[in-house]
């Protein structure tokens, strides 16, 4: 795994010759990413007969391009209509959708595209250069460390609760309670399933996601004429290319923010089993913690949009590292890529980098080229995509409900999941009407089961000794960092108050 400039230059040049394959994969990925339930993993499974028929290099380039662009696609409905296409985009609407409501949808999309592209591109290049070190991360980030990472994400509940402490915490704990429904990971004992077999395997994420955000949004927008305020609608109707250009300019001016939040995504992506949802929540929470204007988060703040989008695109290259280095896929899409490579007799592991460096480094080159091509193909579409927000709610609400219910059905193909999405829709609607934050509920639903999994695992390993969570040196450093992160906003606020008083 040594750095060879000649190999990399040749690899990039060769990957560019696959533009005819990458371009359709980009557009397909964008579409499937934008439709809730139709993830890259599902699509690659459907297209397996095609990818298996390709030679390994061509198949990999196609899958990688589709994977990267689907990640970006998931952010589009999250920003425009408050429907995250996947759990990885669940933190995107927190600030993306308020921007749309202010008539800045085009700008928000452009910011999201630039953050995604540069976040993803940077993470890919860093992965290529730092592969030997990154591949070691999974050997250090074990269950104890993962507990702390989860708590970084879950602490976002407290951040949201800062605006209305009691309601925020109630919503967060409600989400955590929902997240614990299902069979426990050790003894497979079902809890809180109300007798529904469909809940034994935990509350499915997509119905919860589309219910809390999309269905409740559909109920909500029907009360008005349009998603946008009157002023927002006027601004949108007058909008030319200025919104896109301004969005690109704003995003580029926040280059440092893109860099460090995409690095959070990369590091979390390298850990098998962790994923884009964790990365985007952790990045959002960190972004807010170190912001000079934390009070603006949730109101359509640019940095609140950049953080999750850069992070969830940083994850994409990270998930490929354990796949190629130790043969353990970092996520669902990487697992399917493994199936295709194994079908062609490719054996993963360190030897791959020596025996077949083109194939080992190829996915990263393909990812970098995909991101590069996306700058020119997707960014100009922001202007046209954002027009969807001026569609009347008479049409918009039924479209949202029907599309998202189909999306809720697709992953498991249970009718039950469609009903569940409606139930979550009602919960989301009531929560929003009464001032409870649906994002706090969703954080609990997504991160709660993961936290429980790691927590029960370390308890089983330590035979019930709770102090095991402080047993690792790296874990302890992370605990201190967590405490600092949680305390910093309050300390800074107190310092500012004192300064203002003086």
């Amino acid at each position, binding site marked *: 795994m040594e750095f060879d400039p000649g190999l990399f230059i040749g690899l990039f040049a060769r990957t560019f010759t696959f533009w005819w394959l990458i371009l359709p994969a980009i557009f397909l990925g964008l579409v499937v990413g934008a439709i809730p339930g139709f993830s890259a993993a599902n699509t690659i*499974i459907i297209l397996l007969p095609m990818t298996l028929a390709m030679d390994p290099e061509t198949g990999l380039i196609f899958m990688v391009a589709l994977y990267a662009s689907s990640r970006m696609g998931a952010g589009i409905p999250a920003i425009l209509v408050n429907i995250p296409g996947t759990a990885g985009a669940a933190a995107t609407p927190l600030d993306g959708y308020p921007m749309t409501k202010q008539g800045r949808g085009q700008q928000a999309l452009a910011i999201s595209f630039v953050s995604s592209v540069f976040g993803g591109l940077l993470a890919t290049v860093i992965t290529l250069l730092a592969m030997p070190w990154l591949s070691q991360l999974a050997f250090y980030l074990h269950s104890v460390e993962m507990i702390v990472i989860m708590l970084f994400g879950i602490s976002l509940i407290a951040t949201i609760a800062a605006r209305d402490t009691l309601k925020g915490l109630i919503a967060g704990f409600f989400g955590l309670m929902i997240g614990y429904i299902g*069979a426990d990971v050790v003894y*497979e004992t079902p809890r809180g399933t109300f007798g529904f077999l469909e809940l*034994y*395997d935990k509350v499915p994420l997509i119905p919860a996601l589309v219910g809390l955000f999309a269905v409740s949004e559909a109920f909500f927008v029907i009360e008005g004429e349009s998603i946008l305020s009157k002023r927002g609608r006027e601004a949108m109707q007058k909008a030319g290319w200025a919104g896109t250009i301004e969005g690109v300019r704003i995003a580029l001016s926040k280059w440092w923010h893109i860099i460090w939040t995409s690095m959070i995504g990369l590091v979390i992506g390298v850990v098998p089993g962790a994923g884009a949802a964790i990365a985007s929540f952790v990045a959002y929470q960190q972004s807010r913690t170190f912001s000079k204007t934390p009070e603006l988060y949730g109101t359509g703040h640019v940095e609140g949009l950049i953080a999750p989008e850069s992070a969830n695109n940083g994850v994409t290259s990270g998930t490929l590292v354990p796949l190629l280095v*130790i043969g*353990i896929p970092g996520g669902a899409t990487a*697992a399917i890529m493994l199936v295709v490579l194994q079908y062609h007799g490719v054996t*993963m592991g360190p030897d791959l980098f020596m025996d077949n460096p083109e194939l080992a480094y190829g996915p990263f080159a393909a990812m970098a080229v995909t991101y590069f091509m996306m700058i020119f193909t997707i960014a100009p579409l922001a202007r046209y995509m954002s027009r969807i927000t001026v569609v009347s709610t008479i049409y918009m609400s039924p479209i949202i409900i029907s599309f998202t219910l189909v999306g809720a059905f697709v992953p498991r193909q249970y009718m039950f999941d469609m009903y569940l999405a409606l139930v979550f829709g009602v919960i989301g609607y009531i929560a929003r009407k009464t001032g409870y934050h649906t994002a706090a509920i969703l954080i609990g639903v997504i991160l709660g089961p993961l936290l429980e999994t790691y927590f029960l695992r370390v308890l089983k390993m330590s035979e019930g000794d709770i102090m095991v969570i402080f047993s690792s040196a790296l874990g302890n450093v992370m605990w201190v960092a967590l405490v600092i992160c949680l305390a910093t906003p309050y300390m800074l606020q107190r310092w500012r108050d004192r300064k203002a008083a003086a």
Partner: protein
Amino acid sequence: MLDDYFDELDRRRFLMGSAAALGAGILAGTPASEAFGAKFPSRNIKVYVPTRHGGGASRNLEAFTSIWKNYLGVNFQASYYPGAAGRVGYEKYMGIAKPDCYELLFGNMGPEVLNWVVKKPTFDLNAYFYFGQMDRDPGQIFVSRKSKFKHIDEIVAEGKKRTIQIGVSRLAHPATLGALALGRHTGAKFNVIPLSGGKRTRAGVATGEMDCGALPSGGIARRGKNFRILAIFDDTNPIPDKIKNAVLVNKHFGMNLPPLVAGARAFGIKRAAVEKYPDRFKILIDTMNKVYGDPAYQKVLKKTKVPMALFTKSWSREGIDKYVKDITAIGEKYKDLLTGKS
């Protein structure tokens, strides 16, 4: 001719013709058509799989049915119902599948039978049975190639000094039972950690969080560059060319465990379906047995990259019944360890 017919078409003939067509249409979609002796199978066969798509069960099912469908002349339609270690899929099958031989189950017998030892299902266990075993993949203990352990004796010796963390896909699993039985027999302290599936178990071992793992051997043997198998819970080493220097647990430690076959995928069917339609079941069995000897099937199996020796070439009801009985018995013996009540 046709013009003459339409010229003579009056209202009564039109209504009669329509009624006949409607009746034929209704009959074609109802069990009544089956009662008139229509050939079996006349429509696709649905298969309930109690795991996620993408694992060993779907791999074997797709390989087998890709050939079996040629003999039956219909397609197989797999539906995946993962959750609670397979319990969801079984409950679904036993709850909603019609007993007409058009709806089958496909699962991994060992781990799924152990489920019932740990927690009884809502249905009668005698209401279904297995047939058509696909593979015979023994449980084993493995380590990462980077591990300091090179022999199972070293793990046992270390287990007498400290707790050894063993990653397993789930508690109720033949490979888990093997690890627990070995620990109890040798006095080594083995702590099994369920990591929810083979992929995560391999990750736990590869990243060093677990000292070793216990899984079926096929998936590990395929990744021989990353892992080393140290002990096999069977009377013979099924793939000596792939698993070198691994000990047979019974022989090495003087134990008397039944073969702990961890990968034993087979079809299941409701007993009521066989009692109601024995002729249909006979067609299933007769055609199925032809698949085992079909060179096209061997070709498909080779593509899976799983060692060919792990796939069965034939099966018997007696063999399957004995396996289920043995696994159930040893599950009962170690029930305290599987339920955490020890």
